[in-house]
Every structure is written in C-alpha cells, then in structure tokens.
C-alpha cells in the first residue's frame, strides 16, 4: 500500500475513534441532564453544575491603533470585546473580514491590546495567518476552550440587539459590541456541545 493511502486509512481509523468518543460523550451528557431533571422534579436542592458563567464580554471603547495582527489576505484583526477570565489575563474577541467577504471572529487571551495565547507559561501573540471562525450567514457563534475555560463567542448582525446564551438550562444575555462581537466565559468543565445561542 502506498504511504499516501496508508495515511488515509490511519486517518479514517482516527476519525472512527473520534466519532465513537463523541457519541459516548453525548450519551453521558444526556444521562447527566436526565439526572439533573430528575433531581429537580423530586424537589431536591439546587443542583450545582460546572456550567457557571464567569463573565460576559465588554466592548473595547477605543480600538484605534490596537490591531493585533493580520490574517490571510492581509485583513487586520481588531480587538472588539474583552472579558474577565478569572485568571491572570483577560480573554478577548478580535474581528476581521475575510478575503471572500465573510465576517470572522477569533477568541484568545489579551495582554494589553494584543490577542494571543499563553503557551508553557509564556504569552505569545497570535502569529500572522492564524484564522478564526467565519460564516457567510449574518450571525454566528463558535465555542472553544482557552486556559481551561469554555468560551462562547461570535458575531451578531447589526439588527441584533441581544445575544442570549443558554448553557445547561442557565440563560445569560449581552448586547453585542463593535462589529457585533460577543463573548461569554464559563467555568472549566462546561461542555461545548448543547450550548444554545439566540440572536434577538
């Protein structure tokens, strides 16, 4: 078998493992949700889950001259919202327009006005060419894990007045910042699947 074909088979097997693992995680979440509902129905005390909201992004007031880096097509990323992370560095969302016109958002840690990530204890600004999440539709969201926190971020269309995020039954709302950017920071252990986001 050629190495290129062998690599494809190795990737297919890894994909099988990933899909199987995703299904197991989904079943566990379903069982956990069922258990929580049962406790509530039985009149138990409030159930503490890991899905605790830590902070909601605040708009960056004066973004002039605060672009942090460029993405392919030389589009410049601008920091739009920041939120407390509960750690040393706050989190932030940068926005840019991709070469094909898509509206994009990228989340990371913020030092000063620079977007990046802490790797092995050292803050490293995002390198040129690193891309975020984009969508041709007008409003979108994505989720990620940064420094052990679960983040929900994205961009809302101009007409959207409020973004409502519901995690494990707990709703939280925020007004979108510049460019429709928004950011919600949750405690570690919050599952990234099953998050409901509505643009209202």
């Amino acid at each position: 078998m050629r190495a290129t074909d062998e690599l494809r088979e190795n990737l297919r097997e890894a994909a099988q493992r990933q899909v199987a693992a995703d299904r197991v995680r989904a079943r566990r979440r379903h069982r956990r949700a069922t258990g929580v509902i049962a406790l509530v129905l039985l009149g138990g005390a409030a159930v503490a889950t890991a899905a605790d909201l830590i902070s909601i992004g605040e708009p960056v007031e004066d973004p002039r001259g605060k672009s942090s880096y460029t993405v392919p097509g030389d589009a410049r990323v601008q920091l739009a919202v920041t939120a407390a992370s509960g750690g040393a560095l706050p989190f932030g969302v940068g926005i840019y327009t991709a070469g094909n016109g898509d509206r994009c958002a990228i989340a990371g840690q913020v030092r000063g006005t620079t977007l990046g990530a802490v790797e092995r204890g050292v803050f490293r600004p995002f390198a040129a060419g690193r891309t975020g999440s984009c969508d041709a539709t007008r409003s979108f969201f994505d989720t990620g894990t940064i420094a052990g926190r679960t983040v929900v971020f994205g961009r809302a269309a101009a007409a959207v007045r409020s973004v409502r995020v519901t995690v494990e039954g707990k709703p939280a709302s925020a007004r979108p910042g510049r460019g429709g950017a928004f950011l919600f920071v949750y405690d570690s252990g919050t599952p990234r699947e099953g998050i409901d986001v509505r643009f209202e």
Partner: protein
Amino acid sequence: MPVRLPFARRSTCLLVQAQEDPDAFAAFYDAYAERVLVFFTRRVLDVDVAFDLLSETFAKALERRRQFRGSAPEQEQGWLFSIARSELSHYWRDGHVERSALARMGVPVPGLTDPEIERIEQLAGVGELAAPLADAMAALPEDQRRAVELRVIEECGYSEVALRLGVSEQTARARVSRGLRTLARRLREPAALLEDAA
C-alpha cells in the same frame, strides 16, 4: 423573532459530513490530499518534510472538524489551506514539523518509498524548479546563502548553523528565514508563502 443558527442544515461539504461519518473524512482526504502535498512540496522542496506537513495538517483538520462553519466545498478547501499555511509557517519558524495533532489523534505516519518520492516530485514539478532555484541561490547575499545551505542542504540544526557561522542562534534563524523568503520571492511564489516564511 429569534434567529436560530442553521447548524442543522444539510451540507454537501465532506468536512461537515465527516463530523459524524469517518468515511466522509477519508473522502475529504482523497479530495484534497494531493493538492496540499503539491503545495507543501513546491515550498519546502523536500518530499519527506512535505508528507509530514500533510499528515499534521489532516490530523489538525480531523481534530478541529467541528469548528468548520462553512457550507461550500471552496470554503472547506480554504479552511484546510489555512491550516496548511499555518503548519508551513511553524516549520519555517521552528525548523521542524509540528506533530502534536498526530500524537493527540494517535495517527501514525507511514514512511515514503523511493518510487513514491519520485512520483510526488514529478507531480509537484520539483525538477522544473531546479534551474531557477540555483539562480536564486546564487543571487542571495553570502551570509544568507551559507545559512540556507547549512540549514536546508546540510540539514544542520539551528544551533549548529549558529556555531558554524559564528553568530547567535537567533541571528542564524533570521538569516535562514530571510534567505528562504528571498528565494520564494525570486521563484515567484504566491504572496501567502512570504507571509508563511515571516
């Protein structure tokens, strides 16, 4: 009225189908692997390195497939090539291919045979680049040419390049990086490569 995200929409993208279907990921690989391999080979001029970069790129694509938000084949291709460019950038900067996603996904990388290497070189048209490359190398400033020769041809590590040139490792890296960027420019590679090499 609330606007719901169209996450449940039916997509023709192989990458979207691959979120639930391992065979779709294999089809995604079949659709783009050759193009990505040619992309890497024409830039690093080393088929073994290009194949390692290809492997890490697809492992990252597998790992991040749920982050893809596009709905058209050209979007999935653009998304894949953004990963590829990022891997190339890491390679230029660090001098070695990152293998973190391969490790996390548990994907072994098979070795290439000599006939396969020849086939890929032919596919990428590496032979056609030999004469222009020699001209471009000859036109490099002496310090950059020697740094590139040590790093790329003699396959020295950056510490050894620095030792042999009598400069700091940081300076050695800078000379190799500048030399490769100049070569890319003279070989009329796309602007993206220049960004990658920065």
